[in-house]
C-alpha cells in the first residue's frame, strides 16, 4: 500500500472519531442545569403566599449574605424528605436566609404542609401557575438555588437535598 497524504488524513480522522465515541461512553450524558452556576438571577417579583401586598424582589435578597431559594409543594413526596435539612439550615439564620416558593399548589395545602413539618422559611412565596420557576431555570420539584449577596448562583440542587449537598451548603456559608 502506497502511503499518501489522503490516506493518512483518513486514518487520523477515523482514529479521532472512534476515540471520541469511546470517551462519549465514559462521560455522564444526563442533562442538568449546572451551567447556570455563575449567572445572576434578576427581574423577579414574588408575592407572599398569605398576603398579596407583601412581596420580595432583588433588593431584598441583596441584604442577605447567602440566600437559599427552595421550590416546594405539598403534593411533592421528596419535598418531605428534604425538609429536615431545610429546618437545620434555618438555624443558621445569621449566615443564610431561606426563601420557599410554593409551586403550583393551593394556599391551604401549603400552610398545612408547613404546620405539619415545620416552617424553615424566612419568606414563603407563591408560584401558582409555575411561571416564576421558569425564570429561575427550574424544571422539576424540588429544586433549590443558593445565591450570594450579588445574586450570583453559587450552587444548584436538582431534586431533594441530601446529606452530601447539605454539608456542601454548610461549608459554603461559613
Amino acid at each position, binding site marked *: *500500500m502506497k502511503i499518501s497524504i489522503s490516506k493518512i488524513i483518513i486514518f487520523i480522522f477515523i482514529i479521532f472519531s472512534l476515540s*471520541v*465515541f469511546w470517551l462519549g461512553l465514559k462521560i455522564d450524558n444526563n442533562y442538568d442545569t449546572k451551567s447556570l452556576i455563575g449567572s445572576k438571577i434578576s427581574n423577579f417579583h414574588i408575592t407572599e403566599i398569605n398576603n398579596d401586598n407583601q412581596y420580595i424582589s432583588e433588593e431584598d435578597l441583596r441584604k442577605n449574605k447567602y440566600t437559599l431559594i427552595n421550590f416546594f409543594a405539598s*403534593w411533592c413526596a421528596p419535598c418531605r424528605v428534604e425538609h429536615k435539612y431545610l429546618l437545620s439550615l434555618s438555624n443558621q439564620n445569621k449566615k443564610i436566609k431561606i426563601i420557599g416558593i410554593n409551586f*403550583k399548589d393551593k394556599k391551604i395545602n401549603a400552610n398545612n404542609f408547613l404546620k405539619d413539618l415545620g416552617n424553615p422559611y424566612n419568606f414563603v412565596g407563591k408560584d401558582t401557575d409555575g411561571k416564576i420557576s421558569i425564570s429561575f431555570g427550574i424544571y422539576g420539584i424540588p429544586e433549590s438555588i443558593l445565591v450570594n449577596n450579588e445574586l450570583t448562583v453559587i450552587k444548584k440542587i436538582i431534586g431533594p437535598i441530601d446529606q452530601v449537598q447539605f454539608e456542601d451548603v454548610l461549608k459554603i456559608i461559613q
Partner: protein
Amino acid sequence: MLSNIGVALVLLVLILSFLIIYYSSLELKTSSQSIRKNIYQLSLFQITFTVLSFFTLIIGFINSDFSLINVYENSHTAKPLFYKIAGTWGNHEGSLLLWVNILVIFSYLFLIFNHTHNKKFRLYTLVFQNILILGFLFFLLLNSNPFNSIYPVPVEGLGLNPILQDPALAIHPPLLYVGFVGCSIYFSAAMASLLSGYAGKLFAQSIKTWVKISWCFQTLGIIVGSIWAYYELGWGGFWFWDPVENASLLPWFAITALMHSLIVLEKRNTLYSWVIILCLSTFILSVTGTFLVRSGILNSVHTFASDPSRGIYILSFLSLMIFSALIIFFTKYKKENYNFNLKSRETFILANNWFMVFFLVTVLIGMLYPIFLDVLTNVKISVGPPFFNIVIIPLVIPLMFLMAIGPKFSWVKSQNRVFYKILFLILGAIIINLFIFYFFGKYSFLSNLIFIAAIFLILYSLLDIKKIFNKKNKFELPRIISHLSFGFLVFFIGINYQFSLEKDFNLKVGEIKETNNYEINFEEIKIKENKNYKAVIGNFKLTNLKSNLVQYLNPEIRIYSNPETLTYEAAIKTRVTSDLYLTMSNVSRSDYYNIKFQKKPFMIWIWISALMISLGGFMQLILKKNEN
C-alpha cells in the same frame, strides 16, 4: 431446559462458523472450479441451527417460560399471543439473535444462488461473512445472551412496554433488519472482491439482487416505523429526526446510492472503486447506527434500555470492521479511468450519488456533532428537526428535477429533443402550483419551489407511464413508479405541512370549544377496565360547522399495571381527504384536560406514496426473476 437448548444451538452455530472459515480457507488454495460439498453441508447445518435457536426463543415467549431472564424481563402471561411472539425481537438480546439469523440466512442464500460466479470470490465472501457472524455470536454469548436463565423461576414476567404492543411495530424490526443486516452480505462480498480480484460487471451482477432486496425491506421498514409513530405515539407527526430514525436512514441513503451505481457498473463496467466504497460503508453505517442507539451515548424517545458494556463491545467490533475495510481497500485499490459524457445517464446517476452522499453526511453530522461537542467542550446542544429540515429540504428540489430527467438520457450520449418537453412541463408545474397557491392558501417561496419540482416529477413520470403503455415496454415501469411515488410523497407531505390545522387548549368535561369551523364538544369521560390496563376514555363530538358533518372521537388515557406506564392513545379518523386527530391528557391536580386537535390533509396518501416507492423496488425484483 429451553435455556440449555438455546445455548447449545448457539454454540453449535459458533463451531460451524469456525469450521466454515477453516474449510473455506483451505479450499481457496485448491485449483478446482467448484466448491467442495462439505462447505455446503456445513452452511446448511449452520442455517438450520440458527433458525432453530430463534424458534427456541419464540417458544420460550409463547409458553411464558420465565426461567429465561429475557422472557421474564420482556413478557407477561396476560399479553396477547401475537405480542408475546413479537416480544421475542422487541428487546435487545432477542433482536441480536434475529441479527445473527439474518447474517446466517444471507450467508447461505448468497452461497447457493451464486454458483455461476468465481469460486475464490464466493469463498472469501463466506469467510468474511462468517467472521461477522462470529463477532456477533461472541457479543451475544458474552454480553447479551437471550438464553441466560434465572433460578428460582419467577411466577410472572415484568411485561412488555405497552407502546410496543402494536401490529406495525411488531413487524417493523424484522423488516428493517433484512435491510440493514442484509447489507452485511455485500460488505463481505466487497472485501472478497478486493482480495480475489473478481471485479467489474460480474461483481455487480453477483450482488445486484441482494442490494435490491435490502433496499426494498429497508424502505418498507422505515415506512412501517413511521406509520407506527403516527398511530401510536400520539403527537400526530411521523418523522422527528430522532437518533433511532436517523440510524435507519443512514444505511438507506447509502443503499439507494449503491443501487443506482450498480446500474452503471453493470452496464458500462466503470465506477467499481466507488461501488466498493459504498458496499463497505453501508454495513459500517448500520453498525455505527446500532452503536449510537444501543450504547446510551445518545438519548432518544425510543431507544432500548442502554448499557455501557454493550457500547464498548459494539465500538470495538466497529473499529475492527472499519480498519480492516480501510486496510484491504487501500492495499488493493487500483486507479480507474473514467469516461463520462456530461449529457449521459452515467452522469445523472453520479448526480444521484452526489445528493445521497450529501443527505447521508448531513444526517451523520447532525447526529454526531452534539456528541463531539459534549466530549470535547462539555457543552450540551440539541440538533433537532429544524436543522435537518433547513439543510436537507431545499436540496430535494434539484434532486426531483434530476430524478425526472436523468433516466431519459441514454447511455454515453443524448440528444437535445428532451429540452422542449422539460420546459413545457416546468411551465405546467408552475401553473398548477400557482393554482394551489391562490385557491387554497399561501406559502413561502421555498415551498413554492418544492411544489413545482414535485409536480414536475409527477407530470414527467406520468407521461413516461403513458409512453410505456404505448410501446408495451414494461421494464422501465418499476423505476418510474418509484420515482413517481417519490414525487407524490413530497407533494403530499408539502400539502399536509402547509394546510394542517393544530389546536392546543384545555377543556373540562361538558365544555365546548369552537375553532376554525369546528365545534368540539367534550361530552363525557368513561372508565373501562381492560385485560392489562385501565382506560380513561373521552367522548368528543366534533361538528364540522361548514358541512354540518358530525363525528365522534374517543381518545384514551391508558394506565397499565405491568410495567406501570401511562400512555395516551390518539383518536384518529382516517378519511380520503384528511385525518382528524385528537389527543387528551389530564392536567395534574385539576379538572381540566389538555386537548390537542389536528386536521391533517391527505395523510393516507402520504402512506400510499411511500409504500408505492417500496413497491417499485419489489416489482423490479419480481420482473427480473421472470425475465430469467
